[in-house]
């Protein structure tokens, strides 16, 4: 088939399509809503943080690191990575907290400090996707309950991420039949039934995936997740069908394809320090830059253990003391312009 003929065929095939006017709805969604004003980094997306690097300090809970899959974090080193916490524990963390001895999950009412995986959404060049943090919290022995509530009700440590659940929403893990299903009760305004006007369908879908991924990771199983709204089964939550237990969507469709796991946002570390994470990158190529403002101080590349699915990578960086933005991204196979990489960024400080 000749080029000209193809050109004619394709443009003819859609020539009668007159799309609905949608500038109004785009404006409605790009305008700064009250929720976004409270969290101004919402619109900024990953790279915008570069500008604010110097002023960023992690607040909320400390994040931590893990080096593989969805297993709990295993790293605990002198070059402690976690952000500063308010009245929290010291930052270096191995699995269960030393301060409470070796807490076992059966010690229900006692304070049980545990590190739980929490998924958040972030803007990527491929749409809204999930990133994972680790939060060290008092789980009271129920990591699933703690993790899902963190996911909907707390801010992520990394300001490039966010939760799209409306303010005031909380979540709990409840016992309900059948036993091979994880039941999560979403609590909040009855209007959570429908998709709010300032949330796109994709964001609503991703908010639900955020809960599914978080619950399953905290439970360390792939059991389907039944969502309830204020204690009752409902046909939709945020407009997403929820009458049946939900399986997680394919990781390739919902996870950001490059994550930095360590160091965490706001980490203070001595140099050299190790960076590790997960990436599903073209030909397993992972590139990184260490930036001071907009200036690239160091750069390098490495390969993940496997291509095309989330696989561990790591590399070591040496740099003089200072505040930096660490950027890790996949590579551009074409060398061309307009490449929109998968990336993750962390603000870090190298201390003397």
């Amino acid at each position: 088939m000749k080029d000209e003929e193809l050109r004619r065929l394709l443009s003819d095939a859609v020539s009668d399509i007159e799309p609905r006017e949608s500038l109004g709805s785009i404006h409605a969604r790009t305008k700064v809503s009250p929720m976004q004003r409270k969290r101004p980094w919402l619109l900024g997306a990953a790279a915008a943080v570069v500008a604010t690097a110097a002023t960023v300090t992690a607040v909320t809970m400390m994040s931590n690191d893990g080096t593989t899959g969805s297993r709990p974090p295993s790293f605990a080193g002198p070059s402690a990575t976690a952000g500063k916490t308010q009245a929290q524990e010291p930052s270096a963390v191995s699995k269960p907290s030393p301060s409470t001895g070796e807490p076992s999950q059966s010690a229900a009412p006692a304070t049980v400090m545990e590190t739980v995986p929490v998924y958040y959404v972030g803007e990527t060049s491929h749409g809204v996707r999930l990133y994972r943090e680790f939060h060290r919290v008092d789980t009271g022995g129920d990591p699933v309950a703690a993790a899902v509530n963190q996911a909907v009700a707390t801010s992520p440590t990394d300001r490039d991420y966010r939760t799209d659940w409306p303010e005031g929403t909380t979540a709990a893990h409840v016992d309900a039949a059948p036993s091979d299903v994880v039941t999560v009760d979403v609590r909040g305004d009855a209007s959570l039934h429908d998709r709010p006007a300032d949330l796109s369908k994709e964001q609503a879908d991703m908010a639900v995936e955020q809960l599914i991924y978080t619950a399953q990771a905290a439970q360390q199983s792939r059991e389907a997740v039944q969502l309830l709204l204020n204690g009752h089964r409902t046909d939709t939550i945020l407009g997403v069908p929820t009458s049946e237990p939900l399986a997680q969507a394919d990781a390739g469709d919902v996870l950001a394809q490059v994550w930095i796991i360590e160091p965490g946002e706001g980490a203070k570390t001595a140099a050299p320090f190790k960076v590790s994470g997960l990436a599903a990158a073209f030909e397993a190529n992972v590139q990184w830059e260490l930036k001071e403002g907009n200036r690239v101080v160091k750069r390098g590349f490495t390969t993940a253990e496997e291509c095309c699915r989330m696989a561990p990578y790591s590399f070591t960086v040496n740099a003089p003391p200072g505040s930096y933005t660490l950027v890790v991204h996949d590579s551009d196979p074409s060398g061309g312009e307009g490449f929109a990489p998968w990336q993750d960024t962390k603000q870090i400080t190298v201390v003397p």
Partner: protein
Amino acid sequence: MSAAPRWDADTAVDELYAVHYRRLVRLSVLLVHDVETAEEVVQDSFVAMHGRWRTLRDPDSAMAYLRQTVVNRSRSVLRRRGVQARHTPDPMSDHHGADEDALASERRGLVLDALRELPTRQREVLALRYYADLSEAEIASTLGISRGAVKSHASRGAAALRHLLEDAR
């Protein structure tokens, strides 16, 4: 573009919408087959572009970003939709009237149906090359594949499309 206008994110949305919205929706229709989904994909892409404006800053990279986001999101929609959509009855197939309009719309339906039968990459390459008029290099960077791969998807896609359209006659 050296003398790029200094737009803010809102202006970028308005300007690029005015010029490119319809074409982007049509591009997405070639990929996802239905108009409503395509509109949604393009709307989402404009919202995403607005959010990324600080890193894009000029109309050319914003346009490249939009186009790429439309293609990526179209692909995600298809994947999420899975097989189920492939068997939706074709709304065009009821038309058997002999008048010009009916014939034209039947012909359009055939092309869209044939595209839907192609592997995703071939469909994307054909749409970007013959509808969006991108060069091989631009397609390679939009899709994150090599130029060699663009070439081979284009030639295989064109052959497969011809084959499907001949069968449909």
